[in-house]
């Protein structure tokens, strides 16, 4: 390309070379523009299709309401935690646990740190023998079978339990 231009400006057959080179460049420019615009338009259509496949424009009650593999459960879980955040006493020690999925204790604690801004989330292991039991437990997906606690709130995805002894 640069060589072409040099010959345009310096060569004796400059005019002829210039006429030969410019249509090719112009065509490449047009092809580039066409390619870029076509791909861009296709990506926009695919993005709209993807958005519609995920439910399209809609109101969301939580940040996970239409995301992930089980959005309804995620939404219900976050709503339960938001309720706990609003209603449980500030600085109360709270454990979030899936009674039937203790493998996820670390994940539940991580989520609790984000959602229970007013309380003090503690690991679910504090419920185990020898632990320092929390004041409240948010049980997700299944009831808490622990005689030290009684249920104070029930929600579609679980409940909140208060320590009574």
């Amino acid at each position, binding site marked *: 390309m640069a060589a072409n231009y040099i010959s345009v400006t310096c060569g004796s057959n400059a005019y002829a070379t210039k006429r030969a080179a410019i249509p090719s460049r112009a065509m490449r420019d047009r092809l580039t523009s066409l390619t870029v615009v076509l791909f861009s338009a296709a990506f926009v259509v*695919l993005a709209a299709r993807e*958005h519609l496949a995920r439910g399209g424009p809609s109101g969301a009650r939580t*940040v996970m309401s239409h995301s992930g593999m089980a959005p309804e459960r995620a939404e219900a879980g976050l709503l339960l935690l938001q309720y706990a955040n609003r209603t449980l006493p500030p600085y109360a020690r709270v454990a979030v646990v899936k009674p039937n999925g203790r493998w996820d204790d670390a994940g539940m604690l991580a989520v609790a740190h*984000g959602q229970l801004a007013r309380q003090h989330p503690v690991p679910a292991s504090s419920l185990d023998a020898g632990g320092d039991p929390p004041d409240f437990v948010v049980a997700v997906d299944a009831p808490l079978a622990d005689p030290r606690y009684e249920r104070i709130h029930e929600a579609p995805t679980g409940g909140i339990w208060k320590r009574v002894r």
Partner: protein
Amino acid sequence: MIGARFLLLTLLVFAAGGWARRFRPPLAAYFAAGLVTVALEMLVLAAFGVRWNAFVLLAAPVAVLVAQLRGYAVTRQEVNRVTAQPRNRATGIITILALLIFASAVISASATSGDFVFFWGSKGQRFGSERMLDTQFLRDPDHAVMHPDYPPLVPLYYAWTMLGASELDWFGAMASAVLFLALAAAAVSGFTRDHRFAALFASMFALLCIRNSVAGNAEPALLFFEAVALGALFARNDEVAAIALAGAALTKIEGGVFVILAIALLGRRWRVALFPLLTLAAWLLFAKTHGLLDSYVPREELSIRYLLPSIGQLLREMSFGLWYAPWIAVALPVFLGNARRAVPYALAALGFLGFMAVIYARPEAHMEWSAQRVLMTPLVVLFFGAIAAQNGHAVTQSRGSATLPRGRVTA
């Protein structure tokens, strides 16, 4: 809904980056400079165990900005006429449509990552309520699942938006993905003046961000810093490139790899290299000092026998489930332009792909969980290769010189 506090404090990030005005960057770069400034200030305060507040964080950048404004003569900034393309209604409409669709998907909470509620947002909430980068919290073995050693810029940004509040604005934090993508597209347009590629950038990455559900994660921020850095390198604005590269290093682990490749292959000048390398070193030193370096040393043994399967799966993941369309979209302009100008970018992208192949060469790699998100980085690099290839073409046509454009550009 997104709260006024979140919006105001996000706008103040631009003010915190106002000191970058002397480099005459596009608007997007102010946000990059602001985020890097705030994050570095928070990191320094954490190193000394000092809690932050708005006054402490804003005092220094605002003082620098005011000092610059004194006697500052407002001059019309130079526009890069070499690569400037006439504004085109079609590309403008496509850009806006792509951003609107992405915004709709994000606000509808249909593009949110689970990692947002697991650790990106949760760490932001913790740092914001404690008003410091809480290393004691991060070191706790019970919090290992929250990736304590991930670079902290995004949680620190979320913590910044909590100044004066006790709770994170989760919808605002999630919606920041839209801001990052919009500013990244603006950076492409501002640095290259090629609105065709801004449209391609916005549409391609809006699609990939929705498909990969990255809202709330660090990927949109990394994409933003990469776009600003590569745009600035393209426009030979070394200072802004350095700032954005520092931001990339503080955003994700692979951001550090991007920084090293970008410096080695694209910006081999000390003015580009010094600040980001110092920033990366400072973060690594901070992490090491506080015992936060787990992820930099993979838990499972890397093995050469897993390399070929890793490469095979990486090649499959590169399709993005879109028949490799994003790669084709950036490769065609390369071959329609001066492909030689894209060689350093292609090498950088290949280097990054090599890094991915090696890092996933282990028995429990689970590449399907994360590879398509990480692959956005080499795609961005190659995207700028396409712009460089086209720019080489334009340079010859309009200036009669084979050199890259010099001088700063503006939006």
